[in-house]
């Protein structure tokens, strides 16, 4: 297990070293810390929301069962990770580091491919590159031979048997993070390095809550629109 963490640390080091040399230590640290906390918290909140879905649904009657996951094959909740050496709340540290280097490399490549494009375009391409990678990783890692994590969520729409909300999440997290990170130099100019860092993390935290609300609403609407589950698949995957 520790060996897999070492691989993630090594890959994260490649991106962190690049960020340090190209963006400076301040922005490199905020990219690492921001993406780590942003995605780690988002995943952990989503996992915990699923685990305590029944209690939450009693408190929030508008949160439909499908939005937070119901019992599927004896597993209750949205999803959960099965292994990890170090953990950040409910998310293995290697997954958080994975988010960091995937976000960094996708945004970097989007910038290389579209140097003159606006940040909205670059962030969208970065998000799509990350989502494209997960179209293969998720079906592989959830296969019974590996079971790195388990999906219990009943999203009415699935792609390769993986909930559509997962792929939307991949896109949204990297797209939104890229937009906020791009504003960082402006924030530093306006408020100074310390205050800008506080604002940076504050905006990310607000976005976390926004994304969670979005998925709760999406789940409720999707369930009404698609009473029968749809699985978009190739070769029956």
């Amino acid at each position, binding site marked *: 297990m520790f060996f897999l963490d070492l*691989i993630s640390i090594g*890959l*994260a080091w*490649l*991106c962190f*070293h*690049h960020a340090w*040399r*190209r963006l400076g230590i301040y922005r490199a640290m905020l990219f690492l810390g921001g993406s780590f906390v942003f995605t780690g918290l988002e995943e952990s909140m989503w996992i915990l929301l699923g685990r305590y879905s029944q209690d939450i649904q009693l408190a929030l009657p508008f949160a439909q069962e499908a939005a937070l996951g119901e019992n599927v094959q004896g597993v209750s909740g949205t999803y959960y990770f099965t292994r990890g050496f170090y953990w950040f709340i409910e998310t293995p540290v290697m997954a958080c580091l*994975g988010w960091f*280097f*995937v976000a*960094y*490399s*996708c945004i*970097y*490549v989007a910038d*290389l*491919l579209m140097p003159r494009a606006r940040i909205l375009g670059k962030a969208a*391409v970065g998000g*799509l*590159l990350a989502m*494209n*990678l997960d*179209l*293969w*990783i998720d*079906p*592989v*890692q959830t*296969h019974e*031979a*590996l079971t790195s994590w388990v999906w219990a969520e009943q999203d009415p729409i699935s792609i*390769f048997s993986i909930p559509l909300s997962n792929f939307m999440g991949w896109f949204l997290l990297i797209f939104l993070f890229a937009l906020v990170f791009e504003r960082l130099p402006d924030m530093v100019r306006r408020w100074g390095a310390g205050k800008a860092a506080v604002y940076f993390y504050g905006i990310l935290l607000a976005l976390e809550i926004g994304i969670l609300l979005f998925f709760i609403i999406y789940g409720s609407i999707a369930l009404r629109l698609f009473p029968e589950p749809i699985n978009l698949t*190739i*070769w*029956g*995957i």
Partner: protein
Amino acid sequence: MIMEPSRFDKILDYFPILAYFFFWLQGAAIGAIITGDPRLMKLGFVTLPAIAAMILAVFRIRKRHREDTRR
């Protein structure tokens, strides 16, 4: 005077692409082989756009390095 980038500086530009590629290889390609499910191996074709983007990015970096050397 513009200094030519050092050899390490040039290699550094490929680091993020290398990280993405290794993750693709370890998390998806090797994982698919371990499962032994031929359908999952074929599914790798869906990541062709991302791989094409990475290869294009490598060409862009090489072109930029060549331009830096010419100056």
